[in-house]
């Protein structure tokens, strides 16, 4: 009787673990099943390298280059803002601030990381975009620039909390040795501590990239939505995620347009998967 209960309990936990793996497989299977049929009509090369996204025209075209460039543009813009701010904050918190300030800031960063993206989207749309339009005298404030700012601020907590972890796990004898050699604090920080935490910092940037490239609501609301390759940062753009979210409602289940949006999802999934795997490699390097 006792052994039966033991076995049963173990079996249930085993099934739960298998089910978790199954969830991941089901997601992959689900998006590939719906998205791959597109490539019977459009070649992969056409899909990725041509710039003509006209899914609803009488002669539909599915060249997603503008969407891919749009995603990369807002993501790089976001990183340009988030890496200096996040990393700078992390170094300040870990190396310069006293332990009291650190104890107060860490939970605040954790709280900020949980702010819903749709609220940031509203803020970007109703507050930032009109300001940007006024400052730079533009037709619309909904563009790469505004989207990058909001997206950047959104991923600052991720980058700063992970980099802070990496910095504070640098053993203190490295700092002490550097100071003992007569280095100033800034020399210690930039020549001893940051290089030692390099992999953890790189990891935080990669995860920030993954988060920004997959973020939907902010770009959907703030990036403007024109499916062109932006020629300046003040032009609207339409990243992969906002294309999926904006157009899915217009499709009929199983038609080419529907399949093309799932094909975009496959592309997005592969990008984030690759980012995660690289981050994991970098991270396991650090542990070794």
């Amino acid at each position, binding site marked *: 009787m006792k052994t039966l209960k033991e076995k049963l309990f173990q079996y249930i936990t*085993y099934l*739960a673990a298998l089910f978790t793996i199954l969830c991941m497989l089901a997601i992959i299977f689900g998006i590939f099943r719906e998205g791959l049929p597109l490539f019977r009509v459009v070649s992969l090369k056409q899909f990725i390298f041509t710039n003509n996204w006209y899914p609803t025209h009488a002669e539909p075209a599915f060249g997603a280059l503008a969407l891919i460039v749009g995603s990369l543009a807002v993501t790089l813009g976001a990183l340009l803002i988030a890496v200096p701010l996040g990393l700078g904050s992390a170094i300040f918190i870990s190396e310069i601030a006293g332990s009291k300030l650190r104890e107060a800031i860490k939970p605040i960063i954790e709280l900020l990381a949980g702010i*819903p993206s749709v609220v940031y989207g509203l803020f970007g749309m109703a507050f930032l975009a009109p300001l940007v339009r006024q400052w730079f005298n533009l037709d619309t404030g909904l563009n790469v620039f505004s989207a990058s700012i909001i997206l950047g601020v959104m991923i600052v907590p991720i980058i700063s909390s992970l980099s802070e972890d990496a910095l504070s796990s640098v053993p203190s004898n490295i700092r002490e040795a550097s100071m003992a050699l007569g280095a100033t*604090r800034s020399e210690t920080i930039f020549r001893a501590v940051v290089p030692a935490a390099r992999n953890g910092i790189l990891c935080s940037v990669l995860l920030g990239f993954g988060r920004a490239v997959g973020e939907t609501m902010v770009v959907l609301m703030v990036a403007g939505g024109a499916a062109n390759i932006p020629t300046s940062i003040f032009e609207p753009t339409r990243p992969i995620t906002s294309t999926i*979210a904006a157009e899915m409602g217009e499709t009929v289940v199983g038609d080419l347009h529907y399949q093309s949006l799932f094909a975009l*999802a496959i592309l*997005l999934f592969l990008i984030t998967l690759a980012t995660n795997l690289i981050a994991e490699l970098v991270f396991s390097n650090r542990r070794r």
Partner: protein
Amino acid sequence: MRRRKLKNTLSTVILGFALLVTALFLITFLVHMFYKGSMVLSWEFLTSVPRNSMTEGGIWPALVGTFLLTVLAVAFALPLGVMTAIWLTHYGKPAWLISILRVAINSLAGTPSIIFGLFGMAVFVNIMGMDVSVLAGGLTLAILALPVIINNTEEAIRTVPHEFTEASLALGATTRQTITRVVLPTALPNILTGAILSIGRVAGETAPIMFTAATFYSRKLPTSLTDEVMALPYHIYALMTEGTHPDKQVPIAYGTALVLLLMVLLVSATAIYLRYLFRRKKQW
């Protein structure tokens, strides 16, 4: 030497400046949201239904919808996540299965939320025929919350000292008894704070419910799990991008956003505070 000192001061100032800019932006954001939101916030706003094609009235159906979706998601994800974490920490054989599970958990955690939405739409709504419903949305959100809950539970279980499990096993308790009577009760506070944190996360998600659960406009509350619902995050998005009276809709969107923001911040702050209390009280 003076140049080096100057450089030192300068870099300290620049680093502090990074923190200051971030803080200023976030304070502007929060003050703006509170200011604009509080202008429409009232008891009536919370408890009445939307009227006049979303240009008047309150957000009661959206509050109820978000509550239902969140409860359903956590009800699915918590037992599954805890059980998976137990297998991972106490049984975990064979080793290759652990590696696969770890890759699956990390990939789930890194997958963009819109992909969960597409998956839910393709599988729950279309293939399994659940329609756009609380059930389909709740299940989609559950998969989204799963990696968060597994990671938190695993961490909680790993903080239980080895002596506890060894003492229990030495007294003749079986592995199952040790897990259910020693490990889980000890880890419970941390497991629960992890679950509360995931509630905050789930309640604010928009992309996963767009095509699986949410509807723009509904005057009545859902009566069964197969009804579609309004939800706070989707309501904000819809008010800002659809409809014909932005002058009347934007203030309502701000009110809704403030409610969502307060809910999420309060829930997460509670979890963080509880975790702090438990850590201080911990006697081992």
